[in-house]
């Protein structure tokens, strides 16, 4: 389990080795405090949606899931995309309301970022990987937590580097986006050096 957690966190980091959520990663990383907010929201959403999608996929969509109703040949797994997107949008909405009701302080901080997460491909990607790799329920809980924390770690570190980079005198054509890509590439190299961490 700790093996899986570390792998999702470092070596198979969603942002840096699978390029998931890179659009948001580049767009919302100009300041560390916004990156922190988005990262926290991501951890929360990721660790809730992946287990729930796991339950929905294995309970309703997978081949043979309707066996108890006398329909063992029904295979709805092609509906997983539309289903996962719906679940993610709904959970983000519910989380937003729940946070507003019970932890208003956190809601104030994360409020603007939660809707952004609905269209973040890292969330959908995490759920699709969970199906692809056939994780069990405990594994998907661990994977959700690990991949969420990994993504948050990447964006916070990147934002911190980027804040300093604004003072750098880089070539005009490389300013902004070009430089952001090069830095992400360097970070990705750094993270790929974690191969083997946590391996038995």
């Amino acid at each position, binding site marked *: 389990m700790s093996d899986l957690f570390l792998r999702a966190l470092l070596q198979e980091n969603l942002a840096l080795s699978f390029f998931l959520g*890179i659009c948001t990663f580049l767009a919302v990383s100009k300041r560390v405090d916004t990156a922190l907010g988005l990262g926290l929201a991501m951890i929360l959403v990721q660790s809730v949606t992946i287990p729930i999608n796991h339950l929905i996929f294995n309970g309703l969509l997978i081949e043979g899931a309707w066996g108890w109703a006398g329909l063992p040949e029904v295979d709805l797994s092609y509906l997983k*995309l*539309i289903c996962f997107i719906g679940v993610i949008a709904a959970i983000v909405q519910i989380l937003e309301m729940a946070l507003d009701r019970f932890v208003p302080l956190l809601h104030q901080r994360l409020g603007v970022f939660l809707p952004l997460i609905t*269209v973040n491909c890292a969330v959908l990607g995490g759920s*699709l990987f969970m199906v692809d790799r056939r994780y069990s329920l405990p594994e998907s809980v661990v994977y959700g937590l690990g991949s969420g924390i990994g993504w948050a770690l990447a964006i916070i570190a990147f934002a911190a580097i980027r804040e300093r980079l604004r003072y750098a005198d880089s070539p*005009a*054509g490389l*300013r*902004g986006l070009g430089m952001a890509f090069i830095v992400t590439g360097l970070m990705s190299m750094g993270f790929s050096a974690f191969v083997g961490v946590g391996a038995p």
Partner: protein
Amino acid sequence: MTPEHRKYLTAPLIDSNPVTLQILGICSALAVTTSMATALTMSIALTVVLTAASALISLIRRHLPSSIRLVLQITIIAALVIVADQILRAYAFEMSQRLSVFVGLIVTNCIVLGRAETFAMRNPVWPSVLDGLGNGLGYSLVLMIVAALREGFGAGALFGVQLLPLASEGGWFTPLGFMLLAPSAFFILGLMIWALRTGRPAQIEPDAFPRNDTGAEEAGR
């Protein structure tokens, strides 16, 4: 096709390329570019989905209530992506295995939703189709260039056809394994943006801290 229509098709190729200028759809642009074949499949899938989604959304744009338009757009896109995914599974199963989750991720590809929201919602069907097609082709262009570089230097091959003789088989070319790893995609795209912006200075982002003391030097550049 009027000149104005042609502009919808050609502008996104270089001048307002969705990947290098608008930072849209980068996730998949990087992940599937380890070989030309996967990049081409992904490009075709995205272009078809994008064109069809733009056409459909533009067709019903007057009937979409604005409060639920995002949900409806996502549903339309997801339905199209499911069709594309199923077709790939049926006729090119091996390819769909190699693309793993990335075909499914076209749903959250920001190009599709971005074009639907900014263009197809406000324009008639024909321009929207052209705009969708143009953006799809602009995305494909970037993908093919990155893939050609990565597969060319990483394996000495294009479309799986060995062009450079490998050192392990008696040739002279030692493959650069690094090109097949994730970081190289970031570097190639970063350098591509640099090259593009050197050619088109209008795309250069403003300096956050312009140097006032060397104003003459700045003007001279």
